[in-house]
């Protein structure tokens, strides 16, 4: 394949794309899991728990992601036990630390999105379910959480989109993802427009498919939407 | 009678998709008249009044305001609308402006009159609707009745020859209906030309010159209040009147 770029450059680019997708997938799964934990911890009665979650969220919302990434890359290894540090340096430390930083940053926002979804469910829904004889867990599982997820879905999709785009920040600490590879090839060939054009199209494909997936999910999660369209 | 016609509908039709909301409407309103438009919900009375200042387009037919074809292509709607006041069911005061600024908005920003002149006029109008002391308040602090009276003052600020009311008391709590009707009656007695979509039958009887009854987009009855209330001969009018009076 010699279309637009020589094959070795295509290989570099797709290697970068693979890293971008991997980084996004790992960071997103970590972020979502952590967000759920944060929401549950925040909901407990202990002031220390609430306070620490709030502090965690405030830190990640008010400090630039690039600085968070740099913090993990330059500063955090100092705090880690020697064993873990050496293990990291043997196992693509840039990638691991970038994934951690991206996951933590996105988790803070996702936790807030889920929490506002939960708060949007009127207390009467909870009372109605309990009045029908549902247990606390049943009420949460069948009544509250499904409604809350539906409300949180659009902002969560938006967060996923941002996370996908923000993986490009990992290039600043040398993770060889798509933006990094793009710059590398540009430096090599000065074929600026072609290489940046291709990278841009690849990013657009990624974000647009995420958007499409998001709206498919939203359609599926909204029963009765079809009927309303006809009315 | 030498009174001049100010609003004239001539065979006006209007559709929403397949549904016809105005059906061959022809009627005239003369200067100084107070016309009450009533009818069951969905009868087209709100649509009718909203076509007069072109908030709603018409399908065909002709509609003139003071001799100007409202829905003709070249008509300067902004200029036309300055000569017809409109009072909404939901008041629609501008919540980000004080009461005084609501009333001076059109004179200052549309008619380009001086602030001093506009404020004198506005304070005068607010006094007429009994709200002189509220000039500096924001609409959010006023009751529904007070907001509607401000809305009337705002509509009067352009000194229009005719003023339209679209169910001005329907959104009000019952205890506030009286204060708004009082302002409207005072206006009527001063000789203002008014077209009011309303179910306030007391108002129609007391100051109305004519009552128009609409049903399914047609003008069914166009008569005097006395005949309308005391000798209704149309079955739909009878049913309507008994519904409004709460007789079942």
């Amino acid at each position: 394949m010699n279309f637009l770029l020589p094959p070795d450059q295509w290989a570099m680019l797709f290697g970068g794309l693979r890293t971008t997708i991997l980084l996004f997938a790992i960071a997103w799964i970590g972020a979502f899991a952590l967000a759920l934990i944060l929401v549950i911890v925040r909901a407990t009665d202990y002031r220390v728990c609430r306070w620490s979650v709030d502090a965690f969220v405030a830190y990640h919302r008010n400090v630039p992601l690039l600085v968070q990434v740099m913090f993990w890359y330059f500063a955090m290894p100092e705090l880690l036990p020697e064993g873990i540090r050496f293990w990291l340096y043997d196992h693509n430390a840039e990638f691991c630390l970038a994934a951690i930083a991206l996951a933590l940053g996105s988790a803070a926002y996702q936790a807030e999105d889920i929490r506002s979804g939960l708060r949007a469910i009127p207390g009467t829904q909870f009372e109605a379910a309990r009045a029908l004889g549902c247990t606390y867990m049943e009420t949460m599982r069948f009544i509250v959480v499904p409604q809350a997820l539906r409300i949180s879905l659009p902002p969560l999709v938006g967060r996923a989109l941002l996370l996908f785009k923000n993986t490009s920040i990992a290039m600043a600490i040398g993770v060889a993802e798509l933006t990094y590879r793009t710059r590398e090839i540009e430096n090599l060939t000065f074929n600026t427009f072609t290489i940046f054009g291709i990278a841009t199209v690849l990013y657009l494909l990624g974000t647009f498919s995420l958007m499409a997936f998001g709206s498919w999910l939203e359609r599926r999660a909204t029963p009765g939407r079809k009927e309303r369209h006809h009315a | 009678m030498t009174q001049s016609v100010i609003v004239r509908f001539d065979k006006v039709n209007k559709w929403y998709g397949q549904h016809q909301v105005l059906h061959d409407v022809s009627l005239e309103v003369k200067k100084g008249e107070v016309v009450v438009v009533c009818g069951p919900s969905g009868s087209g009375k709100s649509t009718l009044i909203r076509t007069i200042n072109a908030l709603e387009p018409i399908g065909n037919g002709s509609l003139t305001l003071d001799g100007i074809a409202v829905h003709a292509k070249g008509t300067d709607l902004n200029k036309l609308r300055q000569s017809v006041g409109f009072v909404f069911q939901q008041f629609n005061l501008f919540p980000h402006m004080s009461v005084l600024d609501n009333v001076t908005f059109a004179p200052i920003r549309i008619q380009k009159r001086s602030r001093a002149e506009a404020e004198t006029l506005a304070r005068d109008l607010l006094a007429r609707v009994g709200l002189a002391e509220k000039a500096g308040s924001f609409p959010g602090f006023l009751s529904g009745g007070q907001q509607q009276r401000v809305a009337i003052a705002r509509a009067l600020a352009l000194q229009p020859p005719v003023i339209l009311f679209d169910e001005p008391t329907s959104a009000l709590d019952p205890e506030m209906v009286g204060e708004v009707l009082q302002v409207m009656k005072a206006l009527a007695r001063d000789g203002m030309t008014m077209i009011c979509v309303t179910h306030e039958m007391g108002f129609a009887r007391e100051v109305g010159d004519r009552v128009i009854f609409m049903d399914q987009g047609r003008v069914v009855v166009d008569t005097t209040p006395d005949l309308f209330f005391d000798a209704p001969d149309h079955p739909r009018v009878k049913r309507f009147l008994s519904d409004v009076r709460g007789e079942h």
Partner: protein
Amino acid sequence: MLEIIQDYWLTFLIGQYPNGPLGGLAMTIIVAVLSILMSFPIAVAFAMARLSAFGWLRAASAGLVNLVRGIPLLMLIFWCYFVIPIMTGYAVSGFWTLVCALTIYEAAYLSEVIRAGMASVPKGQTEAARSLGGGYFLTMRGVILPQALFNVLPGITSQFISTIKETSLGYVIAVNELTFAANQVNNLLLTQPLQVFTILAAIYFILCFVLSRGLSRLETSIRRKRGLL
């Protein structure tokens, strides 16, 4: 850590100025304020276009906004970095490249915020203004926009905070802003990254946190004054 602050606080605040170029926090704030000010009118125009009566205008503006929102800011910065000099024929400083990219990027996001605000103003407000004889632009300027912008003040605030944070990406094209200054200090000290990056994070945190709190206070007080609470 206190020692670093004592020795380098001027670098963090204003870079090498007055002996060299202005940088540090001052530069960060200048870039953020300039970008948001420039993006604002563009965002308003795009929001109006997206709600316009003309289908082609709606489609064109939606396409452009989604295009910008679909690519990473870093990509946009590189585009500006490479394309502006080629298009204009002049070498453009990193400062203007960053301001340009941030303006475009923020205009796209801000236009969505403002569009939501305009859509949330009840239809009756437009009808009232039009009934008084107000034209499209007077209705927009006098009635719709003041309410729409006020309603989405929290969204505008958070967009502004985002912009402040995004200026840090200027580091990648060597714009002399706060993150860049911190990295310079880090390179001088070599052995104290934990302290340097803690200071860096703390400065951003204080700036953004105080700003968002302050602006939401301001909003509450205006709401109270207008009887909207």
